[in-house]
């Protein structure tokens, strides 16, 4: 089940560090029967990934659309030993319905932690938790490095901050996940409150 709020089980400072990484991921408890030695992790997806899954299934309807949508999502985020387990949605749909529903439950709840989104998550609550997390002494260097990723534009008369989290993450702006934007804005909010 997708949880819109940040998880209570993860301390704010750990949550901040988790989302600070280039591609956050967390292990899930689900194991395939008889193949328990293969541990599984769920890696973050960008809003674009979700949009692609939506587009890929837009010609379908009802239950079939839902199952193909989640099969698409699972194929993109489920990993084992650092590699995607399934190449595409059709591979995922080869699982039994009972396996898939248990797997989907774990994937969905973990994705809501590693991939909070401005569309599906309660971003106000996430922002508040991440600001608390950024303020932890072990995150001082990381948050300053992230918060310092900005330009000043708008001229001398009306200077304004231009957000540049892309510099910290080393990717183009359009490749940033919502989670990275959230963690950036939390770091900026703390930075502004300290140094303004």
């Amino acid at each position, binding site marked *: 089940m997708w949880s819109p709020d940040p998880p209570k089980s993860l301390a704010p400072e750990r949550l901040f560090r988790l989302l600070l990484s280039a591609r956050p991921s967390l292990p899930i408890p*689900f*194991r*395939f*029967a*008889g*193949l328990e030695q*293969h541990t599984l992790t769920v890696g973050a997806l960008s809003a674009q990934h979700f949009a692609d899954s939506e587009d890929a299934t837009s010609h379908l309807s*009802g*239950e*079939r659309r839902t*199952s*193909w949508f989640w*099969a698409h999502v699972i194929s993109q985020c489920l990993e*084992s030993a650092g*590699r*995607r*387990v*399934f*190449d595409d949605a*059709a*591979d*995922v*749909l*080869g*699982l*039994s*319905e*009972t*396996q*898939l*529903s*248990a*797997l989907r439950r774990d994937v969905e709840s973990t994705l809501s932690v590693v991939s909070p989104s401005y569309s599906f998550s309660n971003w106000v609550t996430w922002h508040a938790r991440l600001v608390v997390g950024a303020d932890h002494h072990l995150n001082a260097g990381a948050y300053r490095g992230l918060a310092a990723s900005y330009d000043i534009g708008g001229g001398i008369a009306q200077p304004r901050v231009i957000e540049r989290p892309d510099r910290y993450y080393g990717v183009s702006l359009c490749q940033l996940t919502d989670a990275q934007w959230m963690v950036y804005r939390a770091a900026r909010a703390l930075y502004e409150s300290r140094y303004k």
Partner: protein
Amino acid sequence: MSDEKHPLFEALRAGERKVHEFDIRELIGLESLTEWGGKPLEKVAIRVARKIEQDAAVDMATMYAEKSAKHASGDPDVILDAKAAAIVATCFRDLRRPHVLSVWPDAEQVCRTLNADQIGALLNLYNQVRRVESPDKKEITADELAAVISMCVAAASTTIPEAVLAKIERVKLEQMFILLAIQLHEARKDEGDGNG
């Protein structure tokens, strides 16, 4: 993306699908049920559907509902009955070649051969198999059972117990009944010991 599939996916694909053997003659009260060729059908194999097969069964059900009930094909009851028939057609397999042959070729043949109660009995059997194979082993706890018993006792003069119990899955109700029977047996035994 590499052409090589993930070892976990390969292991999943190579794994043999389980089949569960059942004698369904008594269950559906149909001694005269025959397989193709006129030989009496004795035992069948039940195989849990893969998600893609389940989606295909939903399509089969929709097509059958449209064909059989032209003026009521959108009726949820008609669709539900057709889905039950389609899942029976998909998951009840010929015992000798369970991965090749099904007992009934499609939902229409299931509906031509069996009545609604018989289809329901087969669906219950299938759901028991699903539960056995499910990675989620949700057992009823003593506290959950106690809560249901309290509710039934407190609201015995109303229709609330029926409404609540109707929403509980049949497999859970079976577990509850067995636990309750054990408790009743223990209580009677204690009472007998006390009197003796």
